[in-house]
C-alpha cells in the first residue's frame, strides 16, 4: 500500500486517534475516584485552615469529621434548603444573581466548644481565579479566621494573599457595623475605605489581587446577609 497516499493517511490518523482516545479514557476512569478523594481532602484542608486548624495530611479527613458538626445550604432569604453543601460549585454560584444562589454553610465546633460558621468565597485576581473561606463567630459578624488561595497570582506580590500574614489580618473584623451589613474591605496600606466598614491592608505591588479579594468578599458574602442577621439575633 502506498504509505504517502491520502487513504493510508486518513486511516492512519483515525486509528491513532481512537487508540490514544481509548488509552486516555481508560486512565481517566480508573483514576477518577482517587483524584476526587484528593480534591475533597484538599477542600477540607482549606475549610479547616479558616478555623485556624492545620492538621497533617493524613489526619485531614478525621479532623474534618470531628470539627465540622454539620453543613447545609441556605438561600438569600436566610432559609435552609435541601442540598449537599460540600458538593456545591461556589465558582458557578458566585456568577448567579444573588437571589438565585445556593449558599453553603459549614458549621464547625472548635476546641473551646464555640460554634463557627465557615462561608466559601470565590472571585478573580489578576491572572486567574482566587478563592477562600471565611469563618465567623456564632454572632454572625465577627471574623474568626480566613483562608485565601489563588491559581496563578504573581509570586511575592499577589500570591501573598495565601500567606497567614495577610489572612490573619481579618481576625476580629466585623461584617455588621451598627446593624448595617458591610463586608470587610481590602485597601492600600495606610488608607481608609470611604464607608465605615472594617478594613485590612492590601498587598503592596499586588493591588489588583487585593482589590479582587475585596470585591470577592463583597460579592460572595452579601447574599448571606439575611442568614447572618438571623444568627446575630
Amino acid at each position, binding site marked *: 500500500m502506498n504509505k504517502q497516499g491520502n487513504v493510508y493517511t486518513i486511516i*492512519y490518523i483515525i486509528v491513532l486517534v481512537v487508540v490514544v482516545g481509548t488509552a486516555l479514557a481508560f486512565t481517566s476512569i480508573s483514576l477518577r475516584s482517587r483524584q476526587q478523594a484528593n480534591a475533597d481532602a484538599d477542600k477540607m484542608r482549606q475549610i479547616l485552615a479558616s478555623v485556624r486548624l492545620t492538621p497533617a495530611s493524613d489526619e485531614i479527613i478525621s479532623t474534618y469529621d470531628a470539627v465540622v458538626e454539620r453543613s447545609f445550604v441556605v438561600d438569600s432569604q436566610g432559609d435552609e434548603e435541601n442540598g449537599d453543601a460540600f458538593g456545591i460549585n461556589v465558582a458557578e454560584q458566585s456568577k448567579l444573581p444573588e437571589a438565585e444562589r445556593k449558599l453553603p454553610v459549614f458549621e464547625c465546633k472548635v476546641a473551646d466548644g464555640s460554634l463557627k460558621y465557615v462561608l466559601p468565597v470565590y472571585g478573580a485576581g489578576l491572572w486567574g481565579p482566587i478563592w477562600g473561606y471565611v469563618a465567623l463567630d456564632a454572632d454572625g459578624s465577627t471574623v474568626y479566621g480566613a483562608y485565601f488561595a489563588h491559581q496563578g497570582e504573581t*509570586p511575592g506580590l499577589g500570591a501573598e494573599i495565601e500567606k497567614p500574614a495577610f489572612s490573619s489580618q481579618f481576625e476580629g473584623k466585623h461584617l455588621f457595623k451598627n446593624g448595617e451589613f458591610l463586608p470587610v474591605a481590602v485597601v492600600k496600606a495606610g488608607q481608609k475605605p470611604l464607608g465605615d466598614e472594617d478594613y485590612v491592608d492590601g498587598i503592596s505591588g499586588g493591588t489588583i489581587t487585593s482589590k479582587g479579594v475585596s470585591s470577592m468578599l463583597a460579592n460572595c458574602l452579601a447574599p448571606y446577609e439575611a442568614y447572618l442577621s438571623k444568627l446575630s439575633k
Partner: protein
Amino acid sequence: MAEKTNNKTVFFNPFSKDNPVVVQILGICSVLAVTAKLEPAMVMGLSVIAVLAFSNVIISLLRSTIPVNIRIIVQLVVVAGLVVIVSQLLQAYAYDVSKQLSVFIGLIITNCILMGRLEAFAMGNRPWPSFLDGVGNGIGYTIILVIVGFFRELLGSGTLLGYQVVPDCLYEAGYENNGLMILPPMALIVVACIIWVQRSVNKNMQEK
C-alpha cells in the same frame, strides 16, 4: 550525526556537551516557571524524562509507518496523550505537587525538547537508542532544572525541599531572603551563569 548508533554517546552527550537547555537552548520557558522551588523542579524533570523516553520509543516504533505529511500531527498526538496520562497520575498520587505545577505539566506538550528530539532523533533511529536519547535528554534537562531550583529556593526562600537551611541566627544578624530570586528573571540569570561556567570549562564550545 556520525555516532548515530553509539548508545553511550547518545545517552551521555545531553548531560553536558549537548545539553538541551544550556547548549541547544530548548525548553527555557518551563525552566523559568517551575524552578522557584526545588521540589516542583524535580517532579517536572521526572515527568519530562518519562514523557520524552516513552514518546521517543513510540515514535521510533511507528517511524516507518508514519506518513511524512502528517508526521508532526502524529508526534503531537502521542506527546499530548502521554502528557495527559502523566498529569492524571500526578493528580491521583501527588496532588500537592500537581497543584503547584498546575498548567506547566500540560505545557510539557509545547516543550521544544520533545518535538526537537522526536523530529531529530526518534524519526530516524531504532527504539533502544531512541529510549536512551529520551532519558539522556530528560536527565540533561532535569540537571539544569535542579541546579536552578536549588539556588533559587536557597537564596529566595532560605529553604531546600521546604526545610529551612538558613539558620535563624543569620536572619537575626540582618540577613534577608532575596525576593528577586523567586521571580522568573532570576531563573534566566541563573541559567546564564550555568552557561557561562559550562562554556568556560569546555573552551571549544565558545562561540567566536
